[in-house]
């Protein structure tokens, strides 16, 4: 039976630990868990928050499509993707991906693939709100994200 991915799009924070437990508890077939956590960063100290806009419905649908591609491609025992929306201050979590597998390489590649595809295909957009209160700006998509995604084709 193919693995069913767990896809969540929510405003609230998540617990990577609780999510990891859901993928491992009571099982003996999971040898490797690769967890990616993406955080809101602000090295310059100018950001008051990132605002994450999303396309409700399509966000879940597109994340599910990406997750199902990963499940088809690698022998996973479980896969979880959580993406937050709304205002997220620096230092807080934005996104979580956990790939569980019997084998280390499959878990690494699936998590890496998932993040590359999520960045370029999942309908989320970031706007930067500044500490100074100046005009907020939309974050521009980066060419290197497209290049990262192209590694898997």
């Amino acid at each position, binding site marked *: 039976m193919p693995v069913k991915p767990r896809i969540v799009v929510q405003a609230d924070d998540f617990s990577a630990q609780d999510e990891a437990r859901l993928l491992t508890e009571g099982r003996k077939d999971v040898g490797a868990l690769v967890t990616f956590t*993406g955080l809101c960063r602000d090295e310059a100290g100018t950001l008051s928050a990132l605002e*994450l*806009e*999303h*396309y409700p*419905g*399509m966000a879940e*649908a*597109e994340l599910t499509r990406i997750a199902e591609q990963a499940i088809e491609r690698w022998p996973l025992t479980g896969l979880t993707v959580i*993406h937050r929306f709304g205002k997220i201050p620096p230092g807080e979590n*934005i*996104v979580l991906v956990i790939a569980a597998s019997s084998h280390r390489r499959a878990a690494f590649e699936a998590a890496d693939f998932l*993040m590359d595809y*999520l*960045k*370029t*295909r*999942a*309908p*989320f*957009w*970031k*706007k930067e709100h500044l500490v100074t209160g100046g005009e907020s700006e*939309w*974050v*521009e*998509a980066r060419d290197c994200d497209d290049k990262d995604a192209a590694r898997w084709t």
Partner: protein
Amino acid sequence: MNIRYFAWVRERVGKEEETLELPADVKTVADLISHLKGLDDYHAAAFEEEDAIRVALDQEHVEADAELGSAREVAFFPPMTGG
């Protein structure tokens, strides 16, 4: 047809969504974009950088040459920047 806008496309159009009756000769996404550009200055500004706009039909990514067919919802937005 229900049309939705996100991020700066939404800000330029000035609305989140609208429902439009389309002329019979609007058959593809590209036709629809041309039609929207003609509506008013806001739509024209939103679609000015046409190459920078991505499209979804019934919540799936499509290219500009896609047929609208029987789709109920089309969405326009900039390249994604999540993650």
